[in-house]
């Protein structure tokens, strides 16, 4: 097989261009003959243009971008017709018992439970209440501490785990929404 550079290697490209490579910074070089060689590096915390704008890495140059972000900022997710928000909370979620937990704003409505990326108005995951098979509060060890996690089993064999400070409240609200549906 031969190496390719497909359209979808954008992520890999960004990863390299933004996170790797040489930078002009303090631990490499600073002064040249008494002339400071300033590195205005736009190095990122994470890959992806979206992240770039979100973290304001253009910040050093850039007020316009922040203005752009402010202008385009949406403060709540778009709901479907006849959909009603019941609860929103900040927490973390993990899909299919993977190790990675991601943070986000979670919304429970009378139709679904979903995670929402505030800065980019993007749905992170969503589960329709009618697709939920089982909801269990389990005690799990996370980073050496015990905590309660909400385990949601879904139709197509997948599992969504949620955690938040008020997870018990979320559990109760979710159960009552499922039953009232």
């Amino acid at each position, binding site marked *: *097989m*031969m*190496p*390719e*550079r*497909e359209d*979808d*290697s*954008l*992520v*890999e*490209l*960004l*990863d*390299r*261009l*933004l*996170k*790797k*490579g*040489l*930078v*002009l910074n303090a*631990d*490499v*070089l600073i002064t*040249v*003959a008494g*002339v*400071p*060689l*300033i*590195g*205005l*590096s*736009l*190095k990122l915390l*994470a*890959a992806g*243009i*979206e992240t*770039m*704008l979100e973290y304001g890495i*253009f910040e050093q*140059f*850039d*007020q*316009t*971008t922040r203005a*752009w972000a402010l202008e385009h900022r949406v403060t709540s997710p778009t709901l479907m017709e006849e959909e009603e928000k019941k609860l929103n909370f900040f927490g973390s979620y993990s899909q299919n*018992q993977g190790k*990675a937990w991601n943070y986000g704003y979670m919304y429970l409505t009378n139709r679904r439970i979903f995670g929402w990326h505030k800065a980019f108005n993007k749905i992170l995951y969503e589960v329709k209440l009618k697709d939920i098979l*089982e909801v269990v509060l389990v005690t799990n060890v996370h980073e050496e501490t015990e905590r309660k996690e909400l385990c949601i089993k879904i139709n197509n064999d997948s599992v969504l785990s949620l955690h938040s400070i008020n997870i018990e409240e979320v559990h109760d609200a979710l159960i009552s929404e499922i039953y009232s549906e």
Partner: protein
Amino acid sequence: MNETEQENCLYVYAILNTATEQNLGPIGINDNPVYTIVYKDIAAAVHFSEKKPEPAKNEQQAKEWVFTHNYAIDKMTEKFGTLLPFSFGCVALGNDETIRFWLQKNYEPFKSELEKLNGTAEYLVQIFYDPKILAEKVLKNSTELQALNAKIQGMSKGKGYILQKQFDVRRDQAITQELSKLGAEFGRSIHENVKEMIPEEKKSNVPEKFKGKKSVIALSCLVSNENVENLGQVLEQINEHEGFAVRFTGPWAPYSFIDLKKDFEHT
């Protein structure tokens, strides 16, 4: 115009092998002409920049800049061979003389790094597996899992739940075992064909084409040009393993393999 804008700044793309000052054409971001500033037989490729460059107007433009930056790096690699790429967005305060002095001061580490990377390029190897196929495979090979599975079949959904959990855990353990066994095998055969490899720290992105699959490992590999074909063959064999798929992307400039900190410490 205020005075900061009159200060000279240079957007830096790369350090490369050449002893000739030359204009590389308008291949830079926003069609800026890129040129080389030479010291001895190495040069920095730069374009003139304002101290406070205009920010990207939108995501599209930011993307274009990143692509253009990479295009410039590609063009220069074509012309000068393997180079030391800079991160996107590095602007140095100073003029050509500043840069030349900086090259002079750091000539040894730059030169030795260029020599080390000569004739190589960076590639990304990602190996994915299909959890469903692997689950079937481990079930086929384990009498314990089969017995557990048979037990569950005869139970009500509620009663079977705990047992099902137990089954899931055992099966996942078996999958992990299988993966680490094969992973070690794959790793060895890849390692024979690369100069260096670094596991990607970040959770690997699973492209659309591999939807439903999970990442086993993602490796940034520094590969000699003459070895790319061999590596391709090794990857082809891995790709033919049932339940596995390989993504082989590149070549990239050796972003992941520049180790100047070490060199700087020596000087």
